[in-house]
């Protein structure tokens, strides 16, 4: 436990979440390490968002544990100091201005007012800070969500599908931001269903299918899974190879879910 980086490690242990008859997350175990971008991949409905909600204490697990820095997140007094998270760009009241939204969040954690202006400038929303969020495009809301995640300058950052709705410039900006945050020694956990995006951003991949862990390995190792035909060059930079590896792996998961033992 007394590892020097334990202050920013996300640990998921035998995590299971059932909603009535549906098992959304099934015996998941993995850790997310600091200093690198960890991609969280899986097809729609594979349990990514549920896992993130369990880590953040928004949902209670049926069994198992999820901790950040060795503690259940629900036991933390001031969240933004420890974890910044963008779960859904829509998790904002449409009637409030961007500035008021961030100001309330900042105040609740004892964060200075200057910091609100700082993050607004960082995500490029300073010019529209007084406008109501209801009039924002999805891309602008994603930026607002990223601003909220950055407010507390936290050592752990979690982003659920942050790229959706961003324009090409925004995607490049977000990619650089995630890499910079990881370069500063933070834990950066980014979910996506776009393998091609992860190729440019992630150092490490955690792949889910049907609520189960399919892969927990470096990007290079993952690329080596690509079927021969697609992985001709065996290069990490070949998006076709990664895409094929991803499709191959998750297709298997559907097969196993049907009751076949691995």
């Amino acid at each position: 436990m007394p590892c020097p980086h334990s202050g920013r490690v996300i640990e998921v242990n035998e995590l299971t979440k059932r909603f009535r008859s549906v098992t959304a997350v099934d015996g998941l175990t993995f850790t997310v390490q600091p200093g690198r971008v960890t991609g969280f991949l899986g097809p729609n409905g594979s349990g990514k968002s549920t896992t993130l909600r369990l880590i953040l204490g928004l949902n209670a697990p049926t069994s198992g544990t999820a901790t950040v820095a060795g503690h259940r997140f629900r036991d933390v007094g001031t969240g933004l100091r420890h974890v910044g998270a963008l779960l859904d760009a829509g998790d904002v009241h449409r009637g409030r201005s961007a500035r008021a939204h961030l100001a309330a969040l900042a105040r609740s954690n004892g964060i200075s007012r200057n910091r609100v202006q700082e993050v607004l400038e960082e995500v490029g929303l300073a010019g529209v800070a007084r406008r109501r969020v209801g009039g924002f495009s999805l891309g602008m809301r994603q930026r607002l969500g990223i601003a909220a995640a950055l407010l507390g300058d936290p050592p752990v950052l979690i982003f659920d599908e942050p790229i959706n709705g961003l324009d090409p410039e925004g995607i490049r900006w977000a990619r650089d931001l995630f890499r910079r945050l990881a370069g500063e020694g933070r834990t950066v956990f980014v979910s996506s269903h776009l393998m091609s995006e992860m190729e440019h951003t992630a150092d490490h991949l955690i792949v889910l299918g049907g609520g189960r862990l399919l892969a927990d390995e470096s990007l290079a190792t993952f690329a080596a899974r690509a079927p021969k035909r697609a992985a001709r060059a065996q290069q990490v930079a070949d998006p076709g190879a990664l895409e094929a590896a991803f499709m191959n792996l998750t297709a298997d998961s559907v097969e196993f879910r049907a009751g076949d033992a691995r």
Partner: protein
Amino acid sequence: MTADPVARRDTDAAGEGPALSRAPSTATAPIQRQVFTRGRARFGDLLPAEWIKLWSLRSTAPALIGVVALSLYLAHADPVRATFDGTVWLLPMLGAGALGAQSIVGEHASGLIRTTLVAVPDRGRVVLAKAAVVAAVAAVFGLVIACGDLAVVSSRATGFAAVPSLAASAVLTLACALVGLALGTLIRNLAATSFGICVVLGFLPLFLKPDQNRWATDVANALPYYAWGRLTGAGHASATTTASVAWGTLAAWMAASIVLTLTTLNRRDV
């Protein structure tokens, strides 16, 4: 939440000690800049946060002012000119209930509740801060209308004799706001919550009156509306209960509402 082990650990990491060394690719400077105004956030920080949330919605102030104006106009237009017109007071009661409900239903409907609870994972603190802000605003709201009533109808007792009535009116709207908060937390849907508030705070006192049979009298006396009526002499003032029981009734509604809000939000996946 006095102990915050994560905070302590981070403080260590920012100071000296072996925790300072981290990923080999990075410099040794602490990664967290000075963005916090103090060591760690306190409960006192949550109150202004909820205050910002309440008043940054454009509809809050006009709605409250509208209800005050309408209540005072109706009190003024009332031919009987009783100081506290019972039926008119259903209006601020429902208004206060809506105020309490909106503060939590708005968060559930938009999904903001998830953002809020990531920022402040301790749900009990969020509920108490919300309840405190909403209750304070509702109490002032009730007090303003009660004072306005006295000013509009100056024939009645004023001065110190009016103090218990003013206090009871402020406590009534406060209790109604907390009932709205509890129903909103339980139901989470604005239309259904509004209906619930109208039934509990509005329809029940019109339907059950304290001068009916024994059962109806007991239930009526346990409603905020008749407890307030007993204390102000408004509406169907009940002769079957004492002032202290009436105060106790209002207090019980407040306490029950807060307990219901706390337990509901604590148990729920959001």
